[in-house]
């Protein structure tokens, strides 16, 4: 009995263009759209000054991610990279466009929670952008040496971001209320765990050693992306930590904000 081709391909070719990963890209698009509209509905009518800033950022993150996923679903932003060995890789570089926009904004949420100065925010965002751009250059490089060197560069930038989060931002957050500290620590743990999985997936995926195929890789990136963006936003926006110190309206029409307490 032959093996199930769908299981082998880890996906389903929804568009009939030979890309089984479109199943995961389609699901990713839907989940990001649902997240975006959920956050919009939750934030509708919020008047608190600080809460509005968090909502503006947190709505845009899955909003742009859903656009990037939709683009990849239709085959936009995918290119073939011919390696020095002669092998040809399909690289979804639109994914990096998404990350270049969204990951600094997730860090901005954390920086606003910790209330750090604008120089610190700029440093964090700059290193994060460097992390994504070098990862993209690595994905598009032709020789293994160049690919792994850029991956290492990107990973070092990531470790710097993580170190900055766990030291400077954490100590700044420690000066704030219990609610802020709790939310900050939860979100930082989420970022530390999920973002660590990205370079690992890169190195074992098609862009690295090729241990897992494009279908599994796309599925894993989709799960990580949805959790790191929609999951992150869900935790953040349900917390009362986003409210200003002098105001305390409910942050959502239907959700019980105290559930996060």
């Amino acid at each position, binding site marked *: 009995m032959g093996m199930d081709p769908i299981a082998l391909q880890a996906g389903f070719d929804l568009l009939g263009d030979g890309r089984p990963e479109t199943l995961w890209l389609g699901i990713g698009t839907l989940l990001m759209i649902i997240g975006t509209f959920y956050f919009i509905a939750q934030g509708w009518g919020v*008047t608190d*000054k600080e809460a*509005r*800033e968090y909502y*503006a*950022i947190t709505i*845009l993150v899955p*909003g*742009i991610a859903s*656009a*990037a996923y939709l*683009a990849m679903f239709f085959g*936009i*932003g995918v*290119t073939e990279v011919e390696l020095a060995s002669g092998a040809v890789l399909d690289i979804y*570089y*639109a994914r*990096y*466009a*998404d990350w*270049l*926009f969204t990951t*600094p*904004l997730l860090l*901005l949420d954390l920086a606003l929670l910790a209330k750090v100065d*604008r120089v610190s*925010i700029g440093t964090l*965002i700059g290193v994060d*952008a460097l992390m994504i*751009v070098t990862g*993209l250059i690595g994905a*598009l490089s032709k020789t293994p040496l160049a690919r792994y060197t850029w991956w290492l560069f990107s990973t070092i930038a990531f470790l710097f971001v993580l170190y900055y989060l766990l030291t400077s931002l954490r100590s700044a957050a420690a000066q704030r209320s219990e609610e802020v500290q709790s939310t900050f620590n939860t979100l930082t743990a989420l970022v530390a765990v999920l973002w660590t999985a990205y370079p690992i997936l890169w190195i074992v995926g098609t862009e690295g050693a090729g241990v897992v195929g494009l279908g599994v890789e796309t599925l894993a990136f989709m799960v990580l992306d949805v959790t790191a963006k929609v999951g992150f936003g869900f935790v953040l926006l349900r917390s009362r930590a986003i409210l200003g110190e*002098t*105001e305390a*309206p409910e942050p959502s029409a239907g959700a019980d904000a105290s559930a996060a307490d």
Partner: protein
Amino acid sequence: MTDTNTQETPVLNTRSVVGLAVCLVIALSGIFLIPTFESRAGFGVTFWTMAALELLAMVGVAYFVLNLHEE
């Protein structure tokens, strides 16, 4: 529904709201103009244009969010 909330609603900075909308358009353009760029200018130009547009949009969002309200 009486006077439980006596604080004034902070006034949004119109420029920042417009700026956020423009950044959204720029970020979306960076993604969806890829095929147009690629067919006309080749992959290298597309790659750097996309990266520049996304970076610009992200920096813009950060700036306008930090200045979302009138002083």
